[in-house]
């Protein structure tokens, strides 16, 4: 595979000796388990970007599969949530949102479609910029906020910092641990261990996963984003599987602690509470959504506006979207290259499914870094 044409960076480890030690250990550990393939799941779009960018799967031994689970917050934003944003925009309310949310399809329209019909949709890179838009005018500005806990804490912070009265939040924030729970409960996934996302764990701490690991007999290791960080975390995970050590470990100690950022956790739960809600393609995840507590009703767009989505939801799903495998991809049952639409009808310029829209979606990452970013390991 040519690095130039595929976009996959040539795999050069900073410390080739250390990389060799780790890949040798991976091979030995997988062999020692006497069952192949062994499937490990990560739940972070940034991990998939790093794995794909550095062509890391080519260094994995045969018999070790590392797959991406529901690690893309934009991808799991439900059709109904997009419909709420689109309905508000079409009602004339100014919407501020992160870039990946704009092209995300709703039941019948995306925010980009609403924009084309004259609605005002502004891309922001931070919650602070959304508040600034509100400060600069008198009219209502709704921040359509997405992201996992790492991003949700910043939405919490701006609400705690007293935003102007014309500002409110339409929360599509999601909480990762309940989604891991849902995947672990799917009998057909056979995930034997999880790599937890490094920067979500900066907030929550890795101790959060101890109970989960014990209950599901599935160890969890927090991993960083350097190729060597990821390999080291995989080694740790296989060792724990071998030793039947069903706990949580930290392979990213330079940024993550057991307790996490307690101050941020307190802010998060002061503003948000977890609630059951549908995740696109996956189904209802108990406690998977972060909604504003009722004390924040005045800043909650769902309570402040009458959002009528009925006009958007009547359309039947298109033939193409019925063939989209995003849901199965996001729980690790199939890979993007198993989807008949991948790279044909579904490309980043005209995505069919959410996984091809977001830069954290498995399909977009595989497409951008050159098809199946796997030169050997896996099946």
């Amino acid at each position: 595979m040519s690095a130039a044409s595929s976009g996959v960076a040539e795999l050069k480890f900073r410390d080739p000796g250390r990389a060799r030690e780790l890949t040798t250990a991976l091979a030995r550990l997988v062999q020692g388990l006497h069952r192949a393939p062994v499937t490990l799941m990560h739940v972070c779009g940034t991990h998939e970007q790093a794995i794909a960018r550095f062509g890391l799967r080519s260094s994995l031994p045969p018999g070790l599969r590392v797959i991406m689970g529901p690690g893309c917050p934009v991808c799991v934003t439900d059709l109904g949530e997009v419909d709420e944003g689109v309905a508000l925009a079409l009602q004339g309310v100014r919407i501020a949102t992160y870039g990946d949310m704009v092209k995300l399809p709703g039941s019948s329209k995306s925010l980009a479609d609403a924009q084309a019909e004259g609605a005002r949709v502004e891309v922001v890179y931070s919650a602070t910029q959304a508040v600034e838009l509100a400060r600069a005018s008198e009219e209502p500005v709704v921040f359509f906020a997405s992201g996992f806990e790492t991003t949700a804490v910043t939405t919490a912070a701006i609400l705690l910092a007293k935003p102007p009265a014309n500002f409110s939040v339409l929360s599509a924030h999601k909480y990762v641990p309940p989604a891991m729970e849902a995947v672990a409960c799917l009998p057909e996934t056979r995930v034997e261990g999880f790599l937890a996302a490094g920067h979500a764990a900066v907030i929550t701490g890795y101790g959060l996963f101890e109970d989960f690991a014990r209950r599901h007999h599935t160890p969890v290791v927090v991993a960083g984003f350097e190729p060597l960080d990821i390999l080291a975390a995989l080694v740790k995970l296989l060792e724990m599987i071998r030793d039947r050590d069903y706990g949580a470990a930290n392979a990213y100690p330079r940024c993550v602690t057991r307790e996490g950022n307690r101050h941020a956790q307190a802010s998060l739960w002061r503003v948000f509470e977890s609630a059951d809600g549908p995740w696109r393609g996956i189904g209802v995840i108990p406690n998977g959504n972060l909604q504003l507590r009722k004390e924040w009703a005045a800043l909650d767009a769902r309570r402040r506006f009458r959002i009528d989505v009925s006009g958007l939801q009547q359309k039947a799903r298109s033939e193409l979207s019925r063939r989209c495998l995003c849901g199965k991809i996001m729980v690790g049952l199939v890979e993007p290259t198993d989807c008949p639409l991948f790279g044909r009808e579904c490309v980043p310029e005209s995505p069919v499914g959410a996984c091809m829209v977001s830069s954290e979606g498995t399909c977009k990452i595989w497409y951008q870094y050159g098809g199946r970013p796997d030169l050997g390991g896996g099946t």
Partner: protein
Amino acid sequence: MCLGIPGKVIGIDGMEATVDFFGVRRQVRLDVVDEPVALGDYVLNHVGFAIRRIPESEVAETLKLFEELAAAADEQDLLAADLRAELAATQESKK
């Protein structure tokens, strides 16, 4: 979007810090970070907020990946694009 970006604190004004990101000065907010932040500290930042003070002994190791990504020019490189978005999430520095 979950990448975060490390930078060095070169000024503090209440809940805002001026942070040097590979030579670019930007403002980030200190509402989320849990430890006291001092001049010269490195912090990990996400969508315009410092989320963690990086212990000094770990700084060099943490910066390596980011330096490489900051130097990547490929528009299609999603990790590098994420880094640029993180920078765009910080505010222009007034100084």
